[in-house]
């Protein structure tokens, strides 16, 4: 469950928390674009490390570390598949360049997760919903989206309780062959689904009893306004994007292997 922890909103105050969610969203999109733009190791490494000051500024270092640990499994999976496919089909000159390329691909994935984490850990679900609403998304959809996000940690906790309860009845998750192991999860999934359904019904009843959707036009307590720092943040992001595009198309990027050989 450590992966979810890294995506959970931390209600603390930091410069990153105070940036408008829309500005942050643009930043995350640009980061995505750059990560996909480059497939060489060096720019991806720079991109990866450039996020760390942001993480420190946002005071979510511990969550970030935990998330990194959580992604290790998938990262390893991506690394291995890349290694295997590049070895057989890539036509790369040396083993070193294959490794470099695989590491780059893994890093790309980690950067995507990392930027997601910064976004979600520093943007409160309320603000997220508000910004969606102000972008013209119907409130019902915003609400459903936010509720889904909000229930992730609740469900994670519940899954843990269910696992405890079934283990106490002698369920051994790690026993048996592959098929048996998948079947072992049925006693955990069914209560989880049933309780999620039950919970959503209860939520619906509670909302209706408090007159949800009674008035056609909703007003909000807060309205989001982009300030100078938000525009600055967006401008910097766009400058970085333009620079990256320039580097990508007009500058030759050496591989790490070449650098070591000639440097």
């Amino acid at each position: 469950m450590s992966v979810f922890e890294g995506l959970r909103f931390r209600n603390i105050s930091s410069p990153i928390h105070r940036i408008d969610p829309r500005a942050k969203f643009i930043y995350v999109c640009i980061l995505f674009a750059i990560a996909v733009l480059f497939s060489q190791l060096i720019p991806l490494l720079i991109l990866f490390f450039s996020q760390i000051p942001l993480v420190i500024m946002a005071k979510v270092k511990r969550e970030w570390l935990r998330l990194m640990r959580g992604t290790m499994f998938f990262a390893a999976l991506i690394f291995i598949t890349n290694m295997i496919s590049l070895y057989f089909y890539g036509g790369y000159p040396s083993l070193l360049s294959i490794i470099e390329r695989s590491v780059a691909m893994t890093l790309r994935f980690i950067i995507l997760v990392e930027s997601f984490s910064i976004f979600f850990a520093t943007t409160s679900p309320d603000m997220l919903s508000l910004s969606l609403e102000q972008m013209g998304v119907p409130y019902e959809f915003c609400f459903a989206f936010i509720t889904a996000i909000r229930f992730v940690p609740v469900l994670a906790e519940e899954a843990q309780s269910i696992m405890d309860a079934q283990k106490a009845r002698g369920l051994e998750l790690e026993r048996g062959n592959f098929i048996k192991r998948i079947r072992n999860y049925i006693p955990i999934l069914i209560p989880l689904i049933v309780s999620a359904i039950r919970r959503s019904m209860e939520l619906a009843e509670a909302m209706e009893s408090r007159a949800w959707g009674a008035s056609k036009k909703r007003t909000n307590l807060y309205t989001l306004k982009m300030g100078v720092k938000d525009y600055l943040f967006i401008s910097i992001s766009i400058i970085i994007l333009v620079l990256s595009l320039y580097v990508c198309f007009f500058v030759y990027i050496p591989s790490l292997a070449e650098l070591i050989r000639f440097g």
Partner: protein
Amino acid sequence: MGQNGAGKTTLVKHFIGLLRPTRGRVLVDGVDTRNASVAELARKVGFVFQNPDHQLFSETVEEEIAFALRNFGFSEKTIKERVDWALNLLDLTRYRKTSPFMLSGGERKRVALASVLAWDPKILILDEPTIGQDAYQKERLRHFIIQLNQQGKTVIVVTHDIEFVAECEPRVILMANGRIIADGEAREVLTDPTLVKEASLMPPEITQVFIRLNDFGFPRKVLGVYEAKRLILEYLRGRAGK
């Protein structure tokens, strides 16, 4: 017993190996929990969780009870016997083929209890068993706990239902802020207003009455209804005799 967050559930989770101690060790029937799997410990320790919805998943009540028995590798014949026995014991026989999800909250709780009792564990842990049970079912539960206890089983009940505990008169352990603040006979612990208050509880109603009647020469440490009746009658007869 103790308030929410006192560490009751955390403590009992150590008895079945769901939590392992970071310091010291937990011995269950002579076995160190660090050296045994939860499944091994569960054979000896039956743990009935507070929320039955966390464990019910089968299509019928019967299957639900058989689940743990299958995990422990009982033979089909034994499983059938045990299921019948457990259904009967908890007044659930008529729901045998019903889906556990169709039952009421209290009934689901009983199914959860039946599914644990079925494998006849030596030690039984009940986490908040009285929640959602009506007076009649509570009374049955109480008899049932006493009966199990007389059969030589250890029954550990986690609860804040002080009236329920007072009627059983067991050994009581009070907890507050992750520590044990009292450990002794119910008659001693539950009639001590300061201790009970520290655990965010109120003494049983009968005890509260007798503490206030102390000036008339009544004893303070009274828990049971019948005991109270006897004491009051003695007092009234004494006055009538004068």
